[in-house]
């Protein structure tokens, strides 16, 4: 394989990032490590979204449909059926994959904005169902989970980091492989891609199942880390907004970009908290500046692609 300068940059950068993330907790307070743990789970959400958006060309406005289903399925099994955490996470992830497959048909049929709305609606419907079946799901308040991933903050941090590494590895592998090229071809012009002999359906199924797999897994692990599952953590529209913004300002189609974007969003969000009600607005302004002046995102600034 030929290494272009940018992919060599990428490799160096990934290594540096990884070393930083591995060493970071030694120097940080528990509180900050906890915040970073959340940011790590969040970056898996964002990477999964970027796989669909950046490569497969789907503007998915409902990433939390997949995340939420994974998280809630796992949580419900834990609370109501008392299954062990490991089994809950596994089954939750599988449920999310099924939910992902549900989106393939509309993705093949609908044009951008229409698909956008369908996915958004899927989240709103999920939210309605959670409210309607409040006696099982805890409704607006959410539910407290008996099971936990681990009692140690360090272990939790490294679990999250491991998940990030695995998913980033899988995504990088997929996107730099022939499959990534075919996915992009299908996204830019499905008829042209079909006319080169590719069965686009297969690739969409792959992209959606992978995205759903990691979204669901990360969602399920996140609720067991937090100890609660609630709409505001894994379903609500504001989570969707954060994911989309993190991906775009991190740098779409880079895989590491979404990780940086997520760290950025969560960390600046925390820093700017003293602004009170204006914290969201301040993050939005920062994000807008990046969007306008550095359209390739944070990763673009660092990696200086073409």
């Amino acid at each position: 394989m030929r290494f272009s300068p940018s992919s060599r940059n990428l490799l160096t950068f990934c290594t540096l990032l990884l070393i930083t993330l591995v060493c970071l907790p030694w120097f940080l307070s528990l509180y900050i490590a906890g915040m970073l743990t959340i940011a790590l789970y969040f970056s898996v959400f964002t990477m999964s979204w970027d796989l669909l958006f950046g490569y497969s060309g789907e503007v998915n406005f409902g990433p939390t449909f997949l995340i939420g289903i994974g998280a809630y399925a796992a949580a419900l099994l834990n609370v109501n059926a008392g299954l062990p955490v490991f089994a809950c996470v596994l089954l939750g992830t599988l449920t999310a994959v099924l939910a992902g497959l549900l989106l393939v048909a509309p993705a093949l049929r609908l044009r951008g904005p229409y698909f956008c709305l369908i996915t958004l609606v899927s989240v709103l419907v999920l939210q309605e169902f959670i409210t309607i079946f409040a006696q099982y799901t805890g409704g607006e308040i959410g539910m407290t989970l008996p099971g936990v991933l681990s009692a140690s903050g360090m272990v939790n941090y490294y679990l999250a980091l491991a998940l990030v590494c695995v998913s980033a590895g899988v995504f990088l592998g997929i996107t730099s492989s022939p499959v990534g090229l075919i996915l992009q071809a299908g996204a830019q012009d499905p008829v042209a891609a079909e006319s080169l002999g590719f069965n686009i359906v297969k690739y969409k199924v792959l992209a959606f199942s992978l995205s759903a797999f990691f979204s669901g897994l990360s969602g399920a692990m996140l609720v067991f880390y937090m100890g609660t599952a609630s709409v505001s953590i894994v379903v609500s529209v504001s989570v969707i907004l954060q994911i989309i913004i993190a991906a775009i300002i991190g740098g779409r189609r880079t895989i590491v970009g979404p990780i940086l974007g997520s760290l950025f969003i969560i960390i600046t969000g925390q820093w700017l908290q003293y602004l009170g009600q204006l914290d969201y607005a301040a993050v939005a302004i920062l994000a807008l500046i990046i969007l306008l002046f550095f359209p390739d995102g944070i990763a673009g600034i660092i990696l200086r692609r073409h």
Partner: protein
Amino acid sequence: MALLEVSGLNKRFGGIRAVKDVDLSVQEGQIVGLIGPNGSGKSTLLKLLTGVHKPNSGSIRFDGREIHNWPINKRIKQGMAIVFQHSRPLHRQTVLDNIKLALLPDRVFNIHYPGDIEAKALQAARLLGLEDVVDAYPGSLPFGYIRRMEVAKALALSPRLLLMDEPFAGLTPSEVGELAELILSARHEKQAIVLVDHNVKAVYSFVNRIIALYVGAKIADGEPREVMANAEVRRVFLGKSMDEGQILQPSMASEPGGDNLLLDLDIESLKYGKAEILRNVSIRIREGEFASIVGLNGAGKSSLMKAVTGLVNYTGDVKWRGMSTKRMTTAQIIRLGIAFAPETRELFHHMSVKENLEMGGERLNRHELEARLEDVYALFPILRERVAQPAYTLSGGEQQMLTIGRALMQAPSLLILDEPTLGLAPVVLEAISEALLKLHQSRGLTILLAEQNLHFALKLSNSIYLLDHGSISWHGAVADFVQEVGDKFLV
């Protein structure tokens, strides 16, 4: 057994019967030309064969199997390949990646590129003379290169049946010859080809059989010579143009009347990023003149036209009746009395034919508008039949007619045409030549034409500019052009 066997094929779009009861068969190794006037259903037929459209009725047998409701990709795997009339490159990938894509197998768990793919893709690129641009992005390449890249992709599939929709459109005669040769040399013995093109000369020399369509139905099928001699084919498709195969008669344009300078263009430099497209180009057009700019693909003709209309930035100046247009917006320049029919057409896709034409006549009063509309319909009768159809559903040639028609609606004093002949049937070319000459002679319309089709340009204009790598390398009268540079371009 025939490789392809089509019978009773029908396709309707709303009230239009684009393909009507077509029967045809193609044998292994045959090279078939598919000709017909604009809108006769050629592209639709190819799209039915590859599965982009599904037929309303009829059967398509490929290699002995009924495939009419197979998905596209399955037909491709069975051994078809298509070059679409409108190129569809991947804009985010380089030329090489575009070609590589065609070489990949359709397997989802395909984590590694085959080891030899790089070499194969390079070879395919070299075959079509693309070796210098493999690392470029298609968006930055001239039209001709993109067409070649599309052909390279189709060839990379090593199809048993290769379908090509106007691969030669927009190429100069020498480029056409080159590409035709490349395709033939890359072809293997048993490969069958179906070629659609309006370049009669190229088709004629390329194929060993011709099928002619008219209003969706087959009207002739056989030896090229026979079909070309067929009375109906001559009437609906060729017109008188075949007698003119002999290139050059003196220009038919009248000498410009006055000495009034209409357009005085001096472009020092025009750049896209780092690439300099035009350098020290000067052109002077007098009122009533018919000037043509000719040159190879990528020589900078379209950029020049865009500079005149203020669509791109440049250094230097363009003066209209002595007044600088440098600081004007495109709309202001147009309102001076210039109409532009761009190569990219820029039609309003979801508006009907009539709405598009009315946009052109936007500044006319009701009465003039009606009169102009009638003129345009008289020039392109098929547009009258399609008045209510959205522009994007028109055939390639119909769209071209609409583009020219819309420019004529503007009642300009200077008409700028960029590749107006692209994808038009000979009989329509004839109609356009006549119409342009009439406008030029009787109404004194000044015309600036950028054209690959030299015959067309030479026949009409009274001065020629030859653009070569961004500079004017020759300029003068038509007769001199033939003597001094003619043979190089008229191969």
